[in-house]
């Protein structure tokens, strides 16, 4: 049990360090695309430690408690994530639905503290975040249910090993599902077409408007670990997990870089455009994929 908890913390720490370095590298890549030099690769570390060293004002105990709850919830979620086939923390709790529950704790913590700050812009940002979540969760769950039915298990390691044994990833077997899940991944990460909930210049950063100093540093750490959880989920579900750590790092790097490059050439949707886009285009694609995968299994033979 103690070994499991320590391994869990190790996984969370590894995810934080890897994702923060990757954030700096992707900022450099985007800067080179725009014909300028970018920041150093460890710039995100400097940002987070600078934020942790500033004194900020607090708006009461709900404000501080929400941030700590968000950060704690996310570290607990990351502890369950298997990294490769052999590095995992808790063998019995390796289930997809745990992530669905526990990511909500992080969101809830941020919503609680943002509404405790009393700024109306924070409330607008939180409302938009929950609306976006409503939009992208439905197609994503449809696709993941198809995968779980097909693989026969809802454990992430089980799904990854099923892909490795069959020799074909779900990216190739369910191509429409892959496209749907990729776009939902962009929504989950809060990247450019669906960036309405942060909206840096429009809402003055949405829910993060009243934070400064240490609370903002903790929120940044929470955001990095959330990105790690979501991209790892995508790698395990669609790209076949990983046998060893280098393959995992390579797949993670490719997925995150493609997501970053796609998001940097797009503008930002309005919130009603986000919901209409997901329900008009993405959900029918997910339904078609589900229908083809479940009922027409092997009709071409």
């Amino acid at each position, binding site marked *: 049990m103690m070994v499991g908890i320590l391994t869990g913390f190790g996984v969370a720490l590894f995810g934080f360090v890897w994702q923060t370095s990757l954030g700096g590298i992707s900022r450099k890549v985007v800067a080179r695309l725009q014909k*300028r*030099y*970018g920041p*150093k690769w460890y*710039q995100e570390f400097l*940002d987070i430690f600078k934020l942790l*060293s500033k004194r*900020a*004002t607090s708006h009461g105990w709900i404000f501080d408690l929400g941030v700590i709850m968000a950060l704690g919830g996310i570290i607990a979620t990351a502890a369950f994530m298997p990294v490769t086939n052999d590095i995992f923390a808790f063998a019995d709790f390796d289930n997809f639905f745990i992530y669905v529950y526990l990511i909500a704790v992080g969101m809830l913590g941020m919503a609680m503290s943002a509404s405790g700050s009393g700024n109306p812009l924070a409330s607008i940002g939180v409302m938009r975040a929950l609306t976006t979540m409503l939009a992208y969760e439905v197609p994503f769950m449809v696709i993941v249910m198809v995968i779980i039915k097909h693989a026969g298990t809802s454990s992430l390691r089980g799904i990854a090993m099923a892909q490795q044994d069959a020799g074909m990833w779900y990216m190739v077997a369910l191509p429409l599902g892959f496209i749907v899940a990729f776009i939902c991944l962009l929504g989950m990460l809060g990247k450019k077409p669906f960036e309405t909930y942060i909206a840096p210049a429009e809402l003055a950063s949405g829910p*993060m408007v009243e934070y400064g100093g240490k609370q903002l540093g903790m929120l940044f750490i929470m955001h990095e670990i959330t990105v790690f959880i979501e991209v790892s989920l995508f790698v395990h579900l669609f790209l076949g997990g990983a046998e060893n750590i280098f393959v995992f790092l390579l797949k993670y790097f490719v997925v995150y870089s493609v997501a970053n490059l796609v998001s940097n050439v797009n503008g930002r949707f309005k919130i009603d455009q986000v919901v209409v886009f997901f329900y008009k285009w993405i959900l029918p694609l997910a339904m078609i994929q589900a229908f083809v995968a479940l009922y027409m299994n092997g009709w071409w033979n």
Partner: protein
Amino acid sequence: MESTKFSPITKLSKEEVDRKWWEIGDFFRRNSLWMLMYCTGCCAIELPPAMTSAYDMERLGMGPMATPRQADVLLVTGYLSLKTLRRVIYTYEQMSEPKYIVGFGSCTINGGIYHDSHVVINQLDQYIPVDTYVAGCMPNTEAVMNGFIDLMSLIKNKKADGWKRYKENYEWYKKNQIDSLGEVQVHDEYHQ
């Protein structure tokens, strides 16, 4: 030769430990400055060239930030009328410490070409403490980058202590503000 096993180990005193923590903090703070671009006057037009391709500001670690609570540096670009100065003082007092101010253009130094106007203040550091100025009307973009690097080296040498001066000499700053502004509370139709 004395072996180190028996010679007394020097323990750092409390001031030295504090100073070392503060130095580490200064390293992080000077390499990742987030700016709140309070673009009060015409000098604000010198900021986009400093942010985009040719004179890239992001490689120094600086970037724009949306609210005063999240920013470290308040860039006061251009002339300040009385109305704007009241709101700048509000904004400055909302920022989290440690915080720095950079004054852009000649209008913050001595009034610039608006020195004989009845609504433009002449000297910015009577009202809020300024760490460094960038002179010019407008300053050249290389001068802007030079100003930022000067700010970073001031932080390194621990001379950028405007926020401490504001706290220590608060009555003097307040007296100056009330002398020139009348009162610092913002009374307009939208705040009643």
